């Protein structure tokens, strides 16, 4: 299995959910937004993005609907569900705790 590690995968989920907090969006726009906001540091490739989206949908954190895109094409729009919002809050708190802890270890000595 050539899956990314647990941390990377969980992080991608968090980034996707956070992006969707701003409103419904299709896959391409999600990748684009993450890239722009992170000053091109984070580049989400489709090979990771779409499996993650489908997994998140399967878990009930997001739901998908077909809609009209900005270039007048049919596109699949994802949006956060109520459960997804709750999950995002929890994950954000977890992430803050984790990064703070890692920061503490790295600042040592």
């Amino acid at each position, binding site marked *: 299995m050539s899956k990314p590690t647990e941390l990377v995968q969980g992080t991608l989920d968090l980034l996707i959910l956070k992006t969707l907090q701003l409103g419904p969006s299709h896959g*391409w726009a999600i990748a684009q937004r993450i890239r722009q906001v992170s000053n091109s540091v984070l580049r989400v490739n489709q090979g990771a993005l*779409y499996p993650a989206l*489908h997994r998140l949908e399967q878990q*009930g954190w997001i739901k998908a609907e077909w809609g009209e895109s900005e270039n007048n094409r049919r*596109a699949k729009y994802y949006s956060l569900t109520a459960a997804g919002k709750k999950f995002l809050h929890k994950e954000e708190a977890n992430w803050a705790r984790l990064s703070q802890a890692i920061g503490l270890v790295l600042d040592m000595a």
Partner: protein
Amino acid sequence: MRWLDKIRLRVRSLFQKPAVDRELEEELRFHLERQIQGNIAAGMSPDEAFRAARIEFGAAPRFQEECREARGLTFLQDVARDARIALRTLRKNPGFAAVTILTLALVIGANSAIFSAIYTLVFRRLPYKDPNQLVAIWDSNRHTGVDHIPVMEGSYPILHDGAKQDIRIKFLGRILDALQQFGARDVFFADGELFAVG
């Protein structure tokens, strides 16, 4: 109703596989087209834009598979594969297979035989209305040593009516007393006298 949505999605992935696959393809095609547009907007020539997007998109079949996996489809496919392997293995060791199948057959047979007996005798309610109102009355004769002579069987209300109407059954009144007093189901008489209740 998160779990309901989950089930709905999974059922859809399972039974409307062509539609789900088509949607996935359309979703990915949209991404590719949007990427080409984006590349052109960033200043690439259409050819370049197409090539760049295509390169980035190279592994589409692989991650389509991953999307399917994310939808939990492969679980069932795995089960089917395991079953095939199991059958092949059994065919390779016919002796082992025969012993296994025979053992299972015997055990299942014995189990269901015991269960149906116990079920009929102990658990199943009698196929009558208000089965707990049924009584059986037995007599026995001390001189001849014969016991368990059936006097009558019936429901409590019928016995009760009988007691009022037919005083020829001289001990029916006492039977009813016994039934009421002890909550008995079986009333035993010896030589016409109340002997035991059970």
